[in-house]
Each structure stands twice: as structure tokens, then as C-alpha cells.
């Protein structure tokens, strides 16, 4: 069992891939770069041959996929905050790919708390920015005292709890799935992991990506109301 624990710990730690001027670049950042490069290349390749007239099946499929992803983003946030829809869609694509990239043998970037913390940080910045943009600084400050003044500490606490909850939810889900997958692979590395991988890597990963985006959208909607 000591062997398993050690290997698990080793798998869980995010290694520093290389060091530039004493700054260690971790694996998650590198994997994110890989994802970015791959998606950039794919989207340039796919969108270079788009036709207005008589689109092929592939183009229709791509258009449908992209439009439905955008619709998910704008559908969560509603008509009022349309400008934040594109961000939600982009984040949805990123988390979806990051969560499911474990299938290809990469370590999921969302397994690193830096990534989920960064996502949560951006979410809370966007939420508060949306609130300030909509209500102005005074209105935003006043909104902490709503509905009654006594809940102000709780509202202030919420500014920290929201991103923490988002961060930990995503991180915990991904790392939990990762640990369970490693345990199953330790028991039987051949056939058994396939159905579990279907659930933990693909289904759970996509659901968690959607939940993250959904909650961010919900918070933004709440902030701009």
C-alpha cells in the first residue's frame, strides 16, 4: 500500500516543468499552452475555409457547435448581460477541454489549484466589475447593505466565499475523479477503467465545467440586477 500512496502523491503533485530566471513554470501552465495552441490551430484551420454559400456538413456541424456554446453562455446570463456571454462561453470551452484532457494522457490543468484559483479569481473580478459597471461605485457599495444593513458582513464575506467555493468545487471534483481513476487503474489497468473514465473524465468533467460557468453566470446576473 505504501507504494500506492507514494505513486498517488507523485501523480497528484504538479511538477515544475522548467525554470526561467528562477521562476518555475508548472505543468498545468504548459498543458494550458498546449490546449491553447491546439485550439488556435484547429480554429484557424476550420474557419479558414468557411463558405457563405452551400456550406458542407463539417462547416454546418462546426457552426452549430459554436453557436450552441455561445447560446449556453448567453442563455445563462440572460439578455441583460450579453457582453459577458462570450467570456462564459470561452471559459466553458477551456474548462471542458481541461477537464477531459486526462483521456489523452495529459494531467488535467484543473487538477492544479493555481488554475482553479485563477479561474475563480477572474470570475469574482468579473462579477464585481459587472456590478460596478451596472450600478456605479456608490450603487455597488450600497448593494452590500441589501436587503437589510445587518447582513452587510455576510455580503462582504460572500465576495470571498463565492470564488473559494467555485475554486474548491472544480478542484475537488477534478482531483477526486483523478484519484479514483488512479485507484481503479491500480486495481486493474486494462478494461475496467474504460466505463469509469467515461463517467469521471468526460461526463463529470463537462458537468463541472457547465456548473462553474452556470454559477459564474448566476452570480453576474445577481450582481447586475
Amino acid at each position, binding site marked *: 500500500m505504501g507504494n500506492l500512496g507514494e505513486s498517488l502523491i507523485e501523480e*497528484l503533485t504538479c511538477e515544475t516543468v522548467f525554470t526561467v530566471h528562477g521562476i518555475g513554470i508548472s505543468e498545468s501552465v504548459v498543458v494550458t499552452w498546449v490546449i491553447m495552441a491546439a485550439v488556435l490551430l484547429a480554429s484557424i484551420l476550420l474557419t479558414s475555409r468557411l463558405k457563405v454559400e452551400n456550406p458542407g456538413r463539417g462547416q454546418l456541424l462546426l457552426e452549430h457547435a459554436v453557436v450552441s456554446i455561445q447560446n449556453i453562455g448567453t442563455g445563462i446570463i440572460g439578455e441583460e448581460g450579453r457582453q459577458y456571454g462570450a467570456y462564459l462561453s470561452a471559459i466553458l470551452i477551456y474548462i471542458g477541454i481541461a477537464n477531459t484532457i486526462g483521456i489523452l494522457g495529459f494531467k488535467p490543468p484543473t487538477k492544479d489549484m493555481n488554475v482553479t484559483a485563477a479561474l475563480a479569481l477572474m470570475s469574482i473580478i468579473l462579477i464585481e466589475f459587472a456590478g460596478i459597471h451596472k450600478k456605479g461605485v456608490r450603487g455597488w457599495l450600497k448593494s452590500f447593505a441589501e436587503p437589510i444593513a445587518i447582513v452587510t458582513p455576510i455580503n462582504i464575506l460572500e465576495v470571498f466565499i463565492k470564488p473559494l467555493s467555485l475554486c*474548491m468545487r472544480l478542484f*475537488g*471534483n477534478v482531483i*477526486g475523479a483523478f484519484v479514483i481513476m488512479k485507484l481503479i487503474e491500480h486495481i486493474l489497468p486494462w478494461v475496467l477503467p474504460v466505463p469509469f473514465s467515461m463517467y469521471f473524465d468526460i461526463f463529470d468533467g463537462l458537468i463541472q465545467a*457547465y*456548473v462553474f460557468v452556470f454559477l459564474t453566470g448566476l452570480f453576474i446576473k445577481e450582481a447586475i440586477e
Partner: protein
Amino acid sequence: MSTLIAIGAGIAVLAGIGAGIGIGIATSKATEAVARQPEAEGKIMKILLLGSALAEATAIYGFVIALFIIILLA
């Protein structure tokens, strides 16, 4: 020391009880809803999945805390 850590981690993971009960209730209600209105199955399914994912979060928090205890204290 390691025994105490293990006990602590085990207690932290008890948070999963709440998530289990919550998801169970949600699923039973969803079943009832589908039985009452089979045509709304798609919508109910979507809401159930979302609710389950949210309810699961408490269990995940427990798991994360257990992980923290094990890794940070070991």
C-alpha cells in the same frame, strides 16, 4: 500522529453523508416529477443534473479537506 491524521481525514469525508442524502432526495423528487409529467423529462433531467452537481459540492469540500489534512499534516 498518522493515526490521528487518518481519523481526522475520515471525519472530514463524513461530509459526503449530506451530499448523499441531498442527491437522494433530489433524485426521488425528479422521479416523481417525471412520473407525473413525462413530457418534461428533458428539463427535469437537466435540473436534476445541475442540482446533483451542486449538492455534490459539499461532499467534494469534505474530500478536499481530507486531502488537505493528509498532505499538509503528513
